[in-house]
């Protein structure tokens, strides 16, 4: 199923200039894997050298923080959304 992915505009260069695009996957786990296979530079910005999510990054699946999910083996359904955010500093 196609999953809509949204990334911060500041990271658009990591995803061929896009901030919204689709990834086709059966589960959330597969969607994340395919996302970073397709756009490896995005993974560098979101994860540290130990593959831990950087502490100023948030990933939400349908409005729920992925960090609070028990597992990522969640089936993807039409209309599902993956939102990636970075803490915003300017003011």
């Amino acid at each position, binding site marked *: 199923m196609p999953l809509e992915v949204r990334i911060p505009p500041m990271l658009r260069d990591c995803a061929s200039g896009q901030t919204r695009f689709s990834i086709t996957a059966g589960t959330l786990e597969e969607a994340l894997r395919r996302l970073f296979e397709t756009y490896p530079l995005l993974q560098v910005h979101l994860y540290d050298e130990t593959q831990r999510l950087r502490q100023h990054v948030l990933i939400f699946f349908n*409005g729920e923080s992925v960090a609070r999910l028990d597992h990522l083996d969640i089936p993807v359904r039409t209309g599902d959304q993956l939102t990636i955010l*970075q*803490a*915003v500093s300017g*003011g």
Partner: protein
Amino acid sequence: MTVPQPDVQREDEHMHRYARQVVFPPVGEDGQRRLLGSTVLIAGCGALGSGIAELLARAGVGTLRLVDRDYLELHNLQRQSLYDERLLAEALPKAVAAARRIREINSSIVAEAHPTDLTGDNVLELFDGVDVVLDGTDNWETRYLLNDAAVRTGTPWVYGGVIGATGMSMSIVPGRTPCLRCIFPDPPPPGGDTCETAGVLGPAVWMVASVQAMSALRILLGDPPAARLTTVDAWNAGTEGLDLGDPVPGCPACDLRTGEFLNGARGTGVRLCGRNSVQIAARPGTRLDLGAVAIRLGSIGAVRHNEHLLKLHVDGHGLTLFADGRAIVSGTEDESVARSLYARYIGH
């Protein structure tokens, strides 16, 4: 929050002035009196702080405590709505200019000017008697300091950030909602985009400032918003609210209450470094890709770099940045100027 003394004539004037929000049921006359008796701290009077201060002044929040360490500059006028060319010509500190402008907008409220750097030494004093704190800062060090002070004093505060055409905000009510470090346990590393390097648009500022000001009004009216991260995309005229859940067990700020940023154990070490220069230390373990930083700063000023250090000349100052995030700012002995330059161009 204090309830103003009864004064029938003044009360009538107030209710006439604020009639269009008093008639809105969640405010009402009682709510308006609460606002008039409230004190807010606006930390940073740049773009977000300008918008927040104007909205809260017009809403009749009784006392605005305005804190900022910077001076007005021409490039502020594009988005910092309290300021104009007349104030710029007087070369005023932003806190002073903001207070003057707020008094012109609403002479019946109190606007306190505090032209100072928010630090662990003065933040608790500035929090004294404050009902809610609004984040108008442009750097993480001050936000984490505000977070620690808010937890220590039990004061609600409203985070806001904006860059380019996007931004975000969240309300933090200590003991009830996640705090800043529950959501972002550590600040981003230096070297990321800032408004100076990535730009920022006025409408995005106003959207975030509006979310922050509305959150503050709800907190002051006794109806704080839920624990949500509001994201703003001004370019596409969109907002989204993301559920943040509960406070995180083990959070160093609100659960363990370490107060690391308040007591100086964390944060940027800043010290005078010889004649006319200030050194700013980054947190241990920081490693920067100086080549990437040089590309980002290329449009800002003259940049040279090698694998060990980067030199930037901007705003009449020299900034030497090392790969471990440490920097030496030359052309000043004022620590707040050095902090400001580091926050603007290197980010923190």
